[in-house]
Every structure is written in structure tokens, then in C-alpha cells.
């Protein structure tokens, strides 16, 4: 006992020491998608640490980057809206940026602090979600495609969204675990407009997803990396850049952008962009952070780590980058004869009006709670309840008998 008390005191001392050493550092809170930055793992560049160093060298002050991640735009929105945590830099997708602007949740950027904005290609300005280029600076863009394992999937089945509904591969299909992308897959398959406000069309998509449910192995986001790489799952729709990441670990994985009969893309084209949320504690520092991330070295490090297409000319014009990526990857990320601006208007998600948003939310709930599970569990549970009640009655009867006996 005494020793335990000793250990305890030692821990208290340790705690007091570590408290004492914690100084008041300036902090920039960055909230980003998971697996969406070059984080220094396996010998890559740790861009956040590099920024801390850069800041110290330039401004002579030590700061700290507090980096946290989310799994989907909706998760990010919930966290931001609750006011539970304060962030200085966030990287939502286009439709979510439109929503945040509409709800007055973003700060206007001070571009004089972000001279590297000049690196961003002209093509990525004046996009619908931020028409006057005041709130956001594009980080990456890309399209959703379908990834499949060529050892399992017959190549003849590939090419369209139908692959995700192919009952041949029941139990090996993964679906997005976020409402917008999951409904997107169903709507593209049905040929509906993904930005529709028609309730019946959303319901049609829901029915399609429900029909898919028995075939689906799981609803996942970044868990997809392990599941596809290990061969646990064979088919999934995900972002093109992430496919390139996966093929590094499993060469059997193949990829296609779903098209219609005329060869037009039928999928989502998205932009993820840096924003600063309202109430950011340290806006100027956030802008310096964004500016640094747009400069050549970290931007290339990020683009090479996450494999998403970059709107940053310092990246896509760099010979080093092109060499490192390789021809095949460049073809997937930057398809030939692909005008971003033209396609973006056709293929992007838009922010939905609040009524439709509510509807989509409710339908998503309905999908997630509707799935049928094995009757065996219910039968067992009922048997247990019956058994318990039976035991209770038996017990009561015995007790009464005994009482009689004693009297």
C-alpha cells in the first residue's frame, strides 16, 4: 500500500512539473479531413512542424499548431455549430462552404496576408460557392470514382455506378458513411440531379440505397483504406486521390470514373478549400498558416502525400511533382481535355435549401436505422424474457407454498 501511495505522489509531482512548464504559446487550431495532410509519417514532410519552424524563424516567436481531424463535412459542421471547440482554419468542401457562408459562419479573408493566393490558378476563382472570392482558397479538387479489386471483380462489370449494386459481389461492397456522397451515388445511378429539391426524387434515391443495403459490407469513410488494401472489401466509391494512395499498398486495385453512354462523366467534382470560421481566436495567424501552405514546398509535400489534384500552380507546374507522381497518377488526377470550370458547373454538389437539407437528414436517418438484422437475436431475446418471467412466477409460487408451510 505504501508503495502505491509513493507511486501516486510521484505522479502528482510529475503532473505539477508538466503544468509548470506549460507556457502561454500562441496556437493555431487546424481542423481538417483525416488523411488529408502530409503528417511526417513514414519519412514524409511534417508540414505542421515545418510551419512552426518557419514561423519561429520569420517572426521570432514560438507557436503551436493544434491539428485535429474529422471524417465528413457533416461531422465538421456539427462540431463547429455546437461551439464546442474553436478553430482557426478549416477545410470544408464546396457545398459546405456555401452553407457556412449562408449561415454567416465564416470570416472574410484578408488577402494581403496571403500573397501566395496568386499561385492558385484562375480556373479556380469565381466558383459558385464563393462567387466573389472572399471566404475561401482552394486546397485540392478531385472527382469521386469507383475503386475495385481486379482479382474479385470482372472487368466487364466495371464502368458505371451499377457496379455498386451488383449482387454478384454481395458483402464486398462499401458505401460512403456520409449522407451527401451516399445519396450522390444513388442519384448518379438513377440519372437524377444531385441538387434537386424534389422530395420524390430524394425518396427514389433512398429506395435505391435501401435496395443496396443487403449487399453492403459497411458504411465507412477513411476505414476504407484498410478494407480495400487488405482485400477485405472489393468495391467502393471514393475520392480519386485516395485510390492512388491505396494502389501503393495493393496493386490489384483498379479505378474508373463512371460515365454515361456518351462518355461524359457522371460523378461528383469537388473542391476543398481553406476557410476561417467566425470567431477564430487568431485570424492573422490563420492567414499566415494558409499562406505558408500555399507556398511551394509544403504544397507539393501535401499533394504528393494525399494524391489529390492541386489547383496550386506551384504544384501542378512543378517538374519534380510530375515525376514523383508518375504518368498514370497524373492521368487520373488531371484527365486530358478536362476543363475544370466547365465540368464543375455540371458535376458539383450545391448547398441545399434548409427544407431539403432537413429531408436529406431524415432520409439518411431512415436508411441507417432501417436495416434488417437477424431474427435469431430477437428469438433468443424473447426466449430469455419468457424464461425470466417463468422463473419469476415459479419463484413466487414456491415462496407462497413455503409461507403456507411455515404457518
Amino acid at each position, binding site marked *: *500500500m*505504501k*508503495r*502505491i*501511495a509513493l507511486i*501516486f505522489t510521484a*505522479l*502528482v509531482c*510529475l*503532473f505539477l512539473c*508538466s*503544468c509548470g512548464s506549460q507556457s502561454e504559446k500562441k*496556437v493555431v*487550431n487546424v*481542423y481538417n479531413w*483525416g*488523411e488529408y495532410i502530409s503528417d*511526417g*509519417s*513514414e519519412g514524409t514532410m511534417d508540414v505542421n*512542424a515545418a510551419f512552426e519552424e518557419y514561423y519561429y524563424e520569420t517572426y521570432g516567436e514560438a507557436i503551436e499548431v*493544434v*491539428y*485535429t*481531424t474529422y*471524417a465528413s463535412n457533416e461531422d465538421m459542421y456539427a462540431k463547429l455549430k*455546437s*461551439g*464546442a*471547440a*474553436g*478553430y482557426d482554419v478549416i477545410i470544408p468542401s464546396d457545398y459546405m462552404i456555401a452553407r457556412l457562408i449562408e449561415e454567416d459562419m465564416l470570416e472574410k479573408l484578408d488577402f494581403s496576408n496571403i500573397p501566395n493566393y496568386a499561385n492558385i490558378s484562375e480556373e479556380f476563382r469565381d466558383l459558385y460557392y464563393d462567387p466573389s472570392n472572399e471566404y475561401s482558397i482552394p486546397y485540392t479538387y478531385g472527382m469521386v470514382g469507383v475503386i475495385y479489386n481486379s482479382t474479385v471483380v470482372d472487368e466487364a462489370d466495371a464502368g458505371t455506378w451499377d457496379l455498386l449494386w451488383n449482387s454478384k459481389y454481395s458483402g464486398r461492397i462499401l458505401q460512403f458513411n456520409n449522407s451527401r456522397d451516399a445519396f450522390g451515388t444513388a442519384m448518379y445511378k438513377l440519372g437524377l440531379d444531385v441538387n434537386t429539391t424534389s422530395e420524390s426524387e430524394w425518396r427514389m434515391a433512398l429506395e435505391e440505397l435501401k435496395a443496396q443495403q443487403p449487399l453492403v459490407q459497411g458504411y465507412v*469513410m*477513411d*476505414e476504407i*483504406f*484498410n478494407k480495400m*488494401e*487488405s482485400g*477485405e472489401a472489393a468495391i467502393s466509391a471514393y475520392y480519386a486521390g485516395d485510390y492512388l494512395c491505396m494502389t501503393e*499498398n495493393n496493386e490489384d486495385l483498379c479505378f474508373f470514373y463512371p460515365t454515361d453512354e456518351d462518355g461524359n462523366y457522371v460523378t461528383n467534382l469537388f473542391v476543398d478549400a481553406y476557410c476561417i470560421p467566425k*470567431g477564430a*481566436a487568431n485570424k492573422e495567424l490563420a492567414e499566415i498558416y494558409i499562406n505558408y501552405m500555399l507556398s511551394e514546398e509544403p504544397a507539393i509535400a501535401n499533394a504528393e502525400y494525399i494524391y489529390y489534384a492541386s489547383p496550386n500552380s506551384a504544384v501542378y507546374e512543378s517538374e519534380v511533382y510530375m515525376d514523383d507522381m508518375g504518368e498514370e497518377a497524373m492521368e487520373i488526377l488531371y484527365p486530358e481535355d478536362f476543363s475544370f470550370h466547365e465540368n464543375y458547373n455540371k458535376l458539383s454538389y450545391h448547398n441545399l435549401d434548409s427544407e431539403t437539407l432537413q429531408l436529406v437528414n431524415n432520409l439518411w436517418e431512415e436508411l441507417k436505422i432501417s436495416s434488417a438484422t437477424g431474427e435469431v437475436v430477437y428469438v433468443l431475446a424473447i426466449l430469455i424474457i419468457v424464461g425470466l418471467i417463468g422463473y419469476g412466477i415459479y419463484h413466487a409460487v414456491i415462496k407462497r407454498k413455503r409461507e403456507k408451510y411455515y404457518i
Partner: protein
Amino acid sequence: MKTLSKVYTMLIFVILYAPIAVMVLFSFNASNSTGVFTGFSLYWYKELLSDPATLSALKNTLILAVTSSCIATIIGTVAAVGISKLKNKHTQNAIMTVTNIPMMNPDIVTGISMMLLFVFVSAKLGASQSLGFGTVLIAHVTFNLPYVILSVMPKIRQMDRHLTEAAMDLGCTPFQAFCKVEFPAILPGIISGAIMAFTLSLDDFVISYFTTGNGFETLPIRIYSMTKKRVTPDMYALSTLIFIAVLVLLILSNVAQGDDKKKTRRAKK
């Protein structure tokens, strides 16, 4: 019958330890697969120890566990003594019922109820960030309190009240009587309560998950966010290290207890 029960016990232990054994095995995997073993390497341990986020999560967890268990032990012990001396049995019962709520409630309900409180209050106060170290600390103290009180209370009940009175008859002030008579008698209860609080706080995921904001990540939360992303065996390496640490601590404490017993036996002789 004897062999049957031995076989059964062994079987359960094998099942209980199989996942842990597999995890330890794969922490030494050379490739980044968590399913196929390709060769022995310490690579993932190196990766783990060079990851500042994990190390700071470890530090946070320890700080949180120590602080919350200390605060809970102090408040809880004082409260247990106070409650046991209350004259009104109904008040006593009412207090104990409320105290036990966090113990009986599912963690998720405790977590979200606190989160709602913190978010609501800070929105009213206009704070930019409501959740962080402070809120997690409050939450942990709250769910630790019943365990401390429940382990101190029986010791107080077992104690002979006449001893205190005797001490006071012999000239002690009530405070001295408490320090010299009551406190040593309930100390084992306090210590076991503190240890319990410490381990619960160390292990808690659900309540921290709902009450933490950004910038304060405990180890379980770190593990959670790791399993939401691409999982590499460095998570297994982390778990293996935790497992070894716990094993060593348990063996040490057992040895220490054994020593204590020997000493008392010798003293008796």
C-alpha cells in the same frame, strides 16, 4: 470434474487473450498489414515514439487521471465523512441516490448531458470554445466521485465510534481525533477509492469523447481517431506498450503486497 473445470477455465483465458496476443504479434510486423505477418521488425515502435501527437495524448491522459482522481478523492472522502454523520436518514439517502446516478447511467448519457450543459452555458457566456481540459476534468471528477464515496463509506461504518469519543475524552480536539483516529482507520478505503478513480479515468473513452474539444486529446480518444483513419500497426505497438506497462505495474503491486504481508507476519512473530 476437476479436469473439466480446468479445461474450461483455460479455454476462456485463451479466448480472452487471443486478440491481445495477435495484436502483440502484429505490432512487430514488417509490413503495414494488420492481417498478414511478413516479418519481424521494430519499425512501428520507432514510428510511434516519433509521433508527437500520441506522446502528448499520453501525457494528457496521465495529467487528467492524476488530477481528477486527486480532486475526486479529496471531495469524496470529506463528503463521505460528512454524509455518514448526517442525522437525517432521508437526506443521507437522497444524497447517495444522486451520487450514484453517474455510476448507474450509461456513459453515453452522462457524457452528452455534461456536453449539453457546457455548450449551453458557454454559449450564454459567449465563449469561443466551450470544451477542453477543464470540461473533461469536471466530467471525470463527477463520474469518479461515487466510486470514491462507495469505497470510503463502508470503512467509516465499520469503524468503532467509541474510539473517536475516547480520543476526545483523552483531550483531543475533534480535528485531532479525526486526524489521529478516524483518518488512519479509513485510509485503506481512501486509497482503494483513489486507485479505482485513477484507473477509471485512465480508461474512459465515451465521456471524454463527448466533453472534449480540440487541443485536448486523451489516449483513448487518440486511439479512436486512429481507428477512424487508415490503421497502421503503430496502434498495435501503442497497445502493446500499454499492456506491458499494466502487466509490470500489476506484478509490482502484487510483489509489494506480498512483501507487506511478510513484514507483518515477521512483526507478529
